[in-house]
């Protein structure tokens, strides 16, 4: 049920996709893993869209060097837990949604609980080890996962829908070297994050067709968005049995 105030707030997008879709969005629960460069932009857009519940998982605190791209935070937030600040600020942006801060690190022991009651997971993490913990849990629990990653002027997105296409392990059978202090700027993280948002919207609502089976590459300099075919590997240790 949408209130009069919500109908007014969302009126311009209801013109685009209708009230039924807006109601569907309100019933959705999305987990955002990492509320950094990708995660803040994803979260702001999902909040504006009217997703009913946003679960914000991040163990870290805001640092000054985050502020060039982590657009939810300000100088006053330095030293504060990202998940808590993000939850509060998103609620200010859209008081009609619920935000659930989870200021913890995603590990093998808690990942199943984190993903079990959500409709979709956004991988906005900054390290591969945790990404694969998340990927395994999503495949096991049959929860769609939208991976995003950036490096310099480039980034990539992979939509993982268990049983319907490749998972992250199909693309990276061995963990890539862990990045340390990747060079990055807000327009690249924003470009990649917005593609994650669009793919999330399509999966949640059934509007359009999610980009399954293709790695989406973003090149901010050319500029270009390109697709590379990625097939589910019959030998993938994570998803070959799904």
């Amino acid at each position: 049920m949408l209130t009069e105030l919500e109908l007014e707030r969302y009126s311009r997008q209801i013109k685009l996709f209708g009230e039924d879709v807006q109601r569907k969005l309100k019933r959705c629960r999305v987990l955002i893993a990492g509320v950094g460069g990708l995660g803040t932009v994803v979260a702001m857009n999902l909040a504006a869209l009217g997703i009913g519940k946003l679960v914000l998982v991040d163990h870290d605190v805001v640092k000054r060097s985050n502020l060039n791209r982590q657009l939810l935070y300000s100088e006053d937030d330095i030293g504060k837990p990202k998940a808590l600040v993000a939850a509060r600020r998103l609620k200010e942006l859209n008081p009609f949604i619920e935000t659930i801060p989870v200021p913890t690190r995603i590990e093998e022991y808690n990942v199943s609980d984190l993903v079990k009651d959500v409709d979709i997971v956004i991988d906005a993490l900054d390290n591969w080890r945790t990404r694969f913990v998340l990927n395994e849990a999503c495949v096991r629990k049959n929860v769609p996962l939208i991976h995003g990653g950036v490096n310099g002027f480039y980034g990539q997105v992979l939509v993982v829908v268990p049983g319907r296409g490749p998972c992250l392990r199909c693309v990276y059978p061995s963990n890539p070297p862990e990045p340390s202090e990747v060079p990055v700027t807000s327009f690249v993280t924003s470009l990649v994050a917005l593609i994650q948002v669009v793919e999330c919207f399509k999966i949640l609502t059934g509007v359009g067709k999610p980009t399954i089976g293709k790695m989406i590459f973003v090149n901010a300099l050319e500029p270009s968005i390109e697709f590379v075919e990625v097939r589910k590997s019959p030998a993938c240790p994570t998803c070959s049995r799904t």
Partner: protein
Amino acid sequence: MVRIVKVKISVYTYLREKLGWREKVVEIPGKDQATLEEVLKQVPELYELVVVDGRIAEGYIVFVDGIHAQFVGGLNAVVKDGSEIAVFPPGGGG
């Protein structure tokens, strides 16, 4: 019938700036199929970057027709006429 293996190699992200090209078509005549290593060797600047100590370097992802090379034999993966190879580095930041 002329036997030839014709393969398209595409590179992505900073590899384009590094190598100065987006894609190349490689032709290996006299064969019905080749190995991934044979194909990569046709482009020495790519081979030198991507192959270290006889294996694909951990900083690069190499796909043969949509499957990661590691799942289909690594540098011995079979490449057929019309196959497509994609090479890209992982972007791990968030």
